[in-house]
């Protein structure tokens, strides 16, 4: 399990899990699950297009996921964001279908882009993943306060002169970078599960943003590590275990939250916990 050919897999999965835990926290907070599904899922079109013109896959993924992010934000000005996202993923997938129809050689690669090939990650794929991961983390650190405020209290953010539309686009660009980073090594299905399940579970345990983010990273790490180990032992696909563990973590989180509420220790519902979060964030911002 820890043989030399597995080292790349452990490293790639660990990097992806840390980034997914951090960025996923904001994905859940902003209700951006659809975008987190659409960008990784539609980005394969970029990979197929890159193959056609003989460019590196990661360039195609990057260009397409950034274009997708721009399109969701652009269409979102004139339509609801879920409609904008649906139209975007449909166009990306359709272009992917078009590119695939131009060549018969690329189709088998699609399976690995969707479901990942983490056990076969090469060292050459690891380097860009690590670099992009650092970029994503730095971006989140730089954007932390305005992103947090515009996520939980857009009105307050507006009043403080934060451009919420720009924050929307900035967050989508971060999601596009996460896509480019993760899809070549773990696949679109796995990165989506990691962006939603562990952060959603973490939020059920605490209302304090930094703690929730840390917990979300821990859950994501445990999820991928256990998934790799079990997948190695059973010879079944990793994606199955990541999906199942993410849903399991979320269920446990919800059960915990319900139990706490019953005991009456915390008298607030999910709505109030958002209000609570808003209060903390605005208080923090005011203290500065």
């Amino acid at each position, binding site marked *: 399990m820890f043989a030399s050919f597995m080292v790349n897999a452990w490293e790639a999965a660990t990097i992806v899990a840390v980034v997914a835990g951090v960025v996923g926290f904001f994905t859940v907070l902003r209700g951006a699950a*659809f975008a987190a599904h659409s960008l990784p899922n539609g980005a394969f079109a970029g990979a197929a297009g890159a193959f056609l013109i003989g460019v590196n896959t990661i360039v195609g993924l990057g260009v397409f996921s950034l274009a997708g992010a721009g399109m969701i934000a652009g269409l979102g000005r004139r339509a609801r964001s879920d409609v904008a*996202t649906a139209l975007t*993923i449909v166009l990306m997938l359709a272009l992917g279908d078009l590119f695939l129809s131009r060549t018969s050689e690329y189709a088998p690669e699609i399976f690995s882009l969707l479901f990942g090939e983490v056990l076969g990650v090469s060292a050459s794929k690891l380097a860009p993943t690590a670099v992009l991961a650092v970029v994503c983390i730095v971006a989140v650190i730089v954007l932390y306060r305005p992103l947090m405020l515009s996520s939980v209290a857009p009105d307050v953010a507006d009043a403080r002169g934060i451009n919420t539309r720009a924050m929307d686009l900035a967050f989508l660009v971060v999601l596009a970078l996460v896509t480019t980073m993760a899809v070549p090594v773990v696949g679109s299905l796995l990165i989506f599960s990691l962006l939603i399940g562990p952060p959603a579970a973490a939020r059920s345990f605490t209302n304090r943003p930094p703690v929730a983010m840390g917990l979300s990273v821990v859950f994501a790490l445990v999820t991928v590590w256990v998934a790799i180990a079990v997948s190695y032992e059973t010879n079944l696909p990793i994606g199955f275990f990541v999906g199942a563990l993410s849903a399991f973590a979320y269920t446990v989180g919800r059960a915990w939250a319900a139990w706490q509420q019953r005991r009456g220790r915390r008298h607030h519902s999910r709505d109030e916990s958002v209000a609570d979060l808003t209060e903390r964030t605005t208080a923090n911002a005011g203290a500065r």
Partner: protein
Amino acid sequence: MLALSWSSLFEPGFFSSEPVQVALVVGAITAVVSGIVGVFTVIRGQSFAGHALSDIGTAGGSAAFLVGASTIYGFVAFNVVAAGVMELIGIRKPRGRDLATGIVLGASLGLAALFLYEDTISSSTTGATVNVLFGSIFTLPPGITTVMAVLGATSVALIALVYRPLLLSSVSYELAAARRVPVRLVGGSYLLALALAVSMSAVTIGAILSTALLIGPAAIALRLATRTGVAIAVAAAVAVFACWVGTLIAYDSTVWAGGNGWPVSFCIVAVIFVLYFASGVVARFRGDRRQATTSDQRLAAELVEVA
């Protein structure tokens, strides 16, 4: 002259080819149902659920493939269960809805990965993957039309049954609840209708077109029409138009592109996008900025009448 332009518009064999005829009929049925259901999907802000169900069904489709059953039954069974779980987790509040859909989608894709892997082992082909994911309107089994007609009719009948309370609760959940509309029952019925509609479209024309025909025509119609009833009719018409024109372009492109034609999905999506941008221009040209930006105010106005 007329004959000349006619034959250059429709490449030879378009009307006599049987796969094309089946594609046109199946496409039209799917388009009408998707258009009708889609208007409520857009009003209720459940595009994610609408798209997710087409992916979730993949797990059911691949499971059915594994046990040798017909794919469509796997799709329907999985989607109905998934819709139930989404409703249970709480699909009403925007962020809870987003999360509920995401969790169910993540778990289902995990299952799909497992089943597709088993499919690949048992039949040693990756054809199953691509087939289940993309579908193709030109390679449909002959008996599918009846099953689809039944599913489509059930879906539309469900919508018709709860039409008024559904419209009211879609526009204002609180008002509907205050007027003793059984909001959860109505919402559950709608999700069931959505699950059936998406199952039938995803299994025949693929996940891409399923979402394209569900959201695209409805979004176009809601930009143009001032009333929901009209929007539903416009959405169904736009969906059928896009489907047929797209199929025609795909068929004709075989000649232009030297044998290797463009995929139907791409052609239909392209038509929908052209119409979407055109509808934006029309709405703006009318000077009605309100409709061009959002349909919310218009719905609020209509709500007064419904209530």
